[in-house]
């Protein structure tokens, strides 16, 4: 706990000790970490294997642009508003795609994301298919100087990652978290024990979508430019996120951290190789899925009985009549 707090403080001070490129990279890492936690909650715990979360990343990004350019909102307010609107939007989307099961659900989410992409490409005031840049006055409203802006978007990224991790952790520790873990392990037994599976999944989907849109807004606040292809990229916002969660350990709280570190290590060392880099990622993912279906964290946990985030309820053995 203390080590974690010191680590966060050191990271929070990064604008004073890191260069511009490192700052940008770290910010990206935090946002990917947040996306990975969200996808892991949804797919790893609630069993909603979506390959269409780019719908909400892109939606959040576009809402940032639309609300600041036409609504006159401050960028941070626009990002939060994007989260609220995404939550509202996700309810009818869920009503539609929750009718689909398994692979059909996955395809349904992808189709939904494509509908989002094509819809935003039709909006000519947002640049249509070629996209647009965030106007200078909006960018200036964030902070007057360039370094100030970069520090602010860095802190926003760090803060959002911490908030997402804390929310996911606290949610899983709560009573509702217990039901979600039960659903992860056996849906048929969970339903038989009085758990309303549909409602629990809907809650997770709505919350995940809202946070994903907020992260999307922050991603494009960092990029300052948006286009339908970048905003709704299945590679950037879903494939890489799935890679992170799967190699780290799906359905665990620790997995996404390990996955994110591995992913960025690989990307920073191999990205210059071009296509080869993607081939390496793919091969690594396949090998881990075959050899260690529970990911790197699953391997570690099977060797040592370890929990970075204490989630289990344990019974204290010295007082057998009292709960832990």
């Amino acid at each position, binding site marked *: 706990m203390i080590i974690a707090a010191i680590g966060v403080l050191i990271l929070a001070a990064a604008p004073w000790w890191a260069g511009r490129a490192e700052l940008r990279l770290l910010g990206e890492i935090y946002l990917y970490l947040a996306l990975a936690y969200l996808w892991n909650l949804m797919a790893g715990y609630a069993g909603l294997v979506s390959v269409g979360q780019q719908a909400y990343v892109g939606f959040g990004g576009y809402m940032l642009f639309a609300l600041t350019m036409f609504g006159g909102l401050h960028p941070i307010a626009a990002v939060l508003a994007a989260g609220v609107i995404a939550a509202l939007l996700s309810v009818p989307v869920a009503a539609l795609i929750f009718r689909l099961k398994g692979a059909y659900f996955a395809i349904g989410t992808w189709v939904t994301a494509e509908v989002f992409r094509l819809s935003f490409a039709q909006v000519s005031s947002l640049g249509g298919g070629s996209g647009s840049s965030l106007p200078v006055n909006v960018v200036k409203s964030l902070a007057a100087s360039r370094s100030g802006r970069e520090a602010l978007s860095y802190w926003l990224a760090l803060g959002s990652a911490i908030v997402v991790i804390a929310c996911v952790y606290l949610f899983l520790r709560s*009573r509702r978290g*217990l*039901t979600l*873990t*039960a659903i*992860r*392990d*056996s849906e*048929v*037994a*969970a*339903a*038989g*024990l*009085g*758990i*309303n*599976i549909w409602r629990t999944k809907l809650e997770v989907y709505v919350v995940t979508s809202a946070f994903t849109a907020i992260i999307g807004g922050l991603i494009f606040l960092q990029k300052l430019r948006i286009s339908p292809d970048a905003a709704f990229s299945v590679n950037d916002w879903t494939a890489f996120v799935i890679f992170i969660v799967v190699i780290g350990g799906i*359905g665990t709280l620790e997995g996404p951290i390990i996955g994110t570190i591995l992913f960025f290590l690989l990307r920073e060392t191999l990205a210059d190789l071009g296509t080869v880099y993607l081939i390496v990622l793919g091969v690594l993912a396949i090998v881990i899925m075959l050899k260690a279906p529970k990911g790197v964290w699953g391997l570690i946990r099977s060797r040592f009985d370890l929990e970075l985030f204490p989630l*289990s*309820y*344990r*019974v204290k*053995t010295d007082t*057998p*009549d*009292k*709960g*832990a």
Partner: protein
Amino acid sequence: MSALLSINSLQKSFGAVVVADATTFEVAKGEAVGILGPNGAGKTSLFNLITGALRTDGGTIGFAGRDITNAPAAARCKMGIARSFQIPQPFGGMTVFENALVGATQGAGLPGSRAQAHALSVLEDTGLIDKANMRAGALSLLDRKRLELARALAAKPQLLLLDEIAGGLTDAECGALIATIQRIHAQGTTIVWIEHVVHALLAVVEKLIVIDFGRKIAEGAPKAIMDSAEVKEIYLGIAADA
């Protein structure tokens, strides 16, 4: 005598395979009923229909005076129906205690500390208290069966459905399980029990129902049923005229 569970002309088939064909019977409050039948007769499907894991093709299911034919599975559990699974379905990544806690908080709807106390007492009743902190996925077969029972009991059911809970156990293990189930029954819980281990069944139940190809072929006092020629033929493979 009021019926807690009433099954009326229940109909269910998967393609050409009929698992419930005009099945009709009643279980009185506080009764213990055994269900016999060869493999594939539709016994587990009957439980799936009662708990709401499967939808009926026709007929009605009544519980405690209410029609629950179209109620979702979770709602039926909250009304007081809990089951054990023939093939244990533990929440493998959770501890044994947490498994019971899910039943206590969700099924029985108990608040925090009372749920924990109830989960612990259930683990004590089923002999799992020493393994409370173990991951459920690491349990042996006997303990998985016990956990099925513990989790169902944690939901404080009025009607407990047991699906081959004695199958695969040694005689000593089976004896301990029978004692546990007898105790639960004595406390007033209504039990419907599917079992191939006939002596275990006969130690508890007051009535037997025999099912074959989804049809109820006999119902009555255990001794009379076990002695009937039709049951011997279908269930034990002895020709009726032999």
